C-alpha cells in the first residue's frame, strides 16, 4: 500500500512525527538552544507531497534559508510559490520598511500589528483555497518574536486563539511554533500545548552537547507520547529511540 518514495514512510523525521490529516492543530516548542526549524521544513515536505496548500509566516528565518533547506530535502519552495501552492508572509521585511517612518513605526498601537497579521493570513488562506478542494496549512515560524516586537502577552494569546479558530473551516490546519526562554514565552507555549492535537517539543540534551546526538524530540499526542533522539546531518535528520544512537550511527 505504501510506496518507498512516500516521505511519510521513508523520511525518519516524518515517520517519527506521524502527522495525519486528522491532526488539525500542531504546536512546536523549542527549548533554549535547540533548533526546531527542521520540523517545519520537514512538514513542508509532507504538505507539498500531499499536494496541500501552505501559508508560511516566517519571523525567524529568511526565505532563502527555507529554499536552501528545501532543496536538500527535495522540494522547491519558490516554484511552489510561483505555482500559487504556497504563499509566504515575511513580517521581517515590513519591519525593515517601517523603521524610520515615524507615523506607523511598529505602530504605536500594538494591537494593530496582530490584527493586520491576522487579516493578512486570513486573506492568503482564502486565496489559496479558492476554487479547489485542497487542504491548507497555516505555519507560523516562531510566535515568540511577537514578544520582541513589544506585543503584549494577552494580545498574543488572542492572536493564537484567532489562528486556531481558523480550523472552523474543515480544510484548514495550523502549525504554530514558539521558542521558550523566559517565563512569558512559556505562557504562549502552554496555551498552545493545551489546544494542540499534536505537541512536538525539541530540546537540547540536558547533559550538554554530544557528537552522536544533536537533541531530544518529544511527540506528544492525546493517546501516546513518544520520545526520540535525533542527529542532524548535512542532508537530513536521523531519529532514533534513546539509547539506539550507537547502533544507528555506526551501522
Amino acid at each position: 500500500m505504501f510506496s518507498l518514495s512516500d516521505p511519510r514512510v521513508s523520511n525518519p523525521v516524518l515517520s517519527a512525527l506521524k502527522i495525519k490529516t486528522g491532526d488539525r492543530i500542531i504546536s512546536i516548542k523549542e527549548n533554549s538552544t535547540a533548533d526546531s526549524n527542521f520540523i517545519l521544513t520537514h512538514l513542508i515536505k509532507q504538505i507539498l507531497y500531499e499536494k496541500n496548500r501552505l501559508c508560511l509566516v516566517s519571523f525567524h528565518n529568511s526565505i532563502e534559508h527555507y529554499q536552501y533547506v528545501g532543496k536538500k530535502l527535495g522540494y522547491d519552495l519558490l516554484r511552489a510559490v510561483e505555482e500559487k501552492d504556497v504563499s509566504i508572509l515575511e513580517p521581517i521585511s515590513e519591519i525593515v520598511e517601517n523603521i524610520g517612518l515615524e507615523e506607523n513605526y511598529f505602530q504605536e498601537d500594538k494591537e494593530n500589528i496582530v490584527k493586520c497579521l491576522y487579516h493578512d493570513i486570513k486573506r492568503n488562506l482564502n486565496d489559496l483555497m479558492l476554487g479547489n478542494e485542497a487542504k491548507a496549512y497555516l505555519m507560523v515560524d516562531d510566535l515568540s518574536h511577537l514578544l520582541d516586537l513589544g506585543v503584549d502577552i494577552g494580545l498574543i494569546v488572542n492572536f493564537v486563539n484567532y489562528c486556531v479558530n481558523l480550523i472552523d473551516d474543515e480544510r484548514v490546519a495550523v502549525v504554530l511554533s514558539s521558542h521558550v526562554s523566559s517565563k512569558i514565552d512559556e505562557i504562549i507555549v502552554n496555551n498552545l500545548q493545551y489546544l494542540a492535537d499534536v505537541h512536538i517539543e525539541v530540546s537540547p540534551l540536558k547533559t550538554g552537547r554530544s557528537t552522536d546526538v544533536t537533541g531530544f524530540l518529544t511527540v506528544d499526542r492525546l493517546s501516546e507520547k513518544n520520545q526520540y533522539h535525533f542527529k542532524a546531518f548535512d542532508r537530513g535528520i536521523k531519529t532514533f529511540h534513546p539509547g539506539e544512537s550507537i547502533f544507528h550511527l555506526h551501522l
Partner: protein
Amino acid sequence: MSQLYENIKERRVIKRLSIAEKLQVIEDFKNGMKNKDLSEKREHFGEPVTGPVLQAKAKQFHASLNVDSNFSASNGWLARFKKRHGIRCLNIKGQKRQCVFREELKALLNFNNNTDSVRIDKDQYERLYNVFNDSQLIEIAKGAIEGSDYEEELLNSNYNKDSDEESPNLPPPSLDEDFVLISYLMEKKIHNIPGTSLSIQNGQLLTSSGIPSLDSLLGGGLPVGTVAFIEEDFHGSYSKVILKYFLAEGVVSKHSIFIASQDVNPSSIIKELPAVIESEPDLESKVSKSSNGSDKMKIAFRYQNLPTSDSSTSTMKHIGHYFDISKNMSFSDIENSDICYWTGQRIENGSKTFSNPAYNELLKSIKNRIKEGKFFLKDNPGKRSILRIGIHCLGSPMWLPHRKSLHSIDSSRDLDMFIFCLRALVRSAFAVAVITVPTHLYHEVSLDRCIHSSDIAMRLQAFSGTELENNQSLSDYHGFFYLTKLAAINSLVSRHPGSIEYVFKLRRKKFSIEVLHLPPDIQEDTNTKKENFPSLGCGGTNKHLLEF
C-alpha cells in the same frame, strides 16, 4: 621502424611474423600511443578509456600504418582485443571518479561562463550528485569561477571524513532544470565582493572577523546578513579587541563601516585599530620548529609522523588579514575608508516604540546608512561592498531608559526588540553586525531572547581579577571563550563544535582562540612536595613529626 611498417603489407604478414617481431610491433604501437596521448592525457587528467575510445584509436593507428585492409574496429574486434590484453570493465571510484566528473562540471561551467546561471539537466545532476556532496560541488564551481586551483586542496583536505559522516541512504533531491546552487554562485560572482568568500557548506557569503582562529571556529568566517552577539568580559577589554579586529579587517578589505558607542567616543575606537601585517605571524616560528623536529623520537616513535596541530583548521583557506595589536593603523588608511560614526548625542524624542529613544535613533541611522550605501539585497550598485556594523557596549548603563519610564535595566525588552530589528535589517542587506553587550549587568534569563534573535552568540570570561588568574594550568591564557550559539543558516545542521572548552589569549600580533588542553602535571609536583615539609618544629626538616 618505417622499414618494418613498409614490409607489413597485410594483416596476414603480421600473423606470420616471429614472436620477437610481433612484440616489436606492439611495443611501437604502444609507444606511439603513449607519446601521442601524453599531452592529451595531461589535459583530460583521469579520463577513463572506454570502448569507443579504443575503437577510434585503433582505427587511427590502422590508418597510419597504411595497410590495405578494411579494418573497421568492430565490436567483435573490441571484445577480442579486450580479451587478448586482459582489459576488464571496472567501476571508477573515489578520487579518480571525482576527477572525471570534475572535468565534466568544469567544462559545463566554462561553457556557460557568459550566462548568469548554469543549466544542468536532470541526468547530469543526478550523476554529479552521486559523486560529490554539495560542499564539494560548490568548491569546484568556485574553482572554475575564480580560475584558481581548488581541486588540489579539495583532494588533500579531509572531505572524505565529511562524506562518511553523512547518511548514505538519503536520496538525491529531486531537481528538474536549474541547478540552483551553481546559478546562485554565478549570481554572486557578478558582485565579486572583496574580502568575502563563499561557504563550502551552504553557499553562504562569508567575511572574515579579522581573527583567523575565530573564523575557523565559525566555519570560515561570519556569514553576511547575520548578527554576532558578544557577551563582554568583566572589564570589556577583550571584547573591544575582537570588535577592533572586526573593524580593522573591514578597513583593509575596503568595506564600509558603521561604528556606534555611547560609552566611549567611537572615533577613538577607530583610531586604535590594529595595523595590518603582511605575513602570518606564526609562519616563521613554524618553519624553525619543523627544522628542529628532525631529531627522532626514541620512545613514542609511533607518533613521530603525526601532525602536531589539528590539520583540519590549517587546510581551510583564510580570507582575512593579520594584524599587529601593538601598532595603530595609519591615518591615511583610516581617512580613505568609508566610516560612519554614531555617538548618540543627537536624540529626538520621537517614537514611543523603545523606552529609550537612543535605540530607535540608532536603528534609523543604520537603516539610512544601508540605504545611502545601497547595501540592500534589492539594490544594484555599480560596485558591491559590505557594511560592517560594530556596536560597542550596547545596553550599558548609558542606554538606560529615561527616569520617567517604569523599566529598569533588568528588563532588557528594549535590547530584545533592538536585536530583533537589527537582525531584520541585516538579513535584508549586504551587512554584518557585531555587537558587544555587558551582560554581567543583566539577569541571565533576560538574555535568552537576545541570543535567540542573534545568529552567533559567544561569551568571554577573562581570568584577570578572578581566582582563576593564579591557576597554573591556565597561566598561558587570558580567559575562557564560550560559543553559546552557532545558528544553522541555509542548512539543517549547525557547525557547532560540541562540548569543547575554548580559551583565548592575546599576544602582540595575535588574538587566538584555542582548545583548552591542561598541561602535564609536572610543575605542580614540586610545589606540593615543598608544602609537605613541615617548616616548624624542633627537629630537622627530614625527621618525622613523631620522632623525639
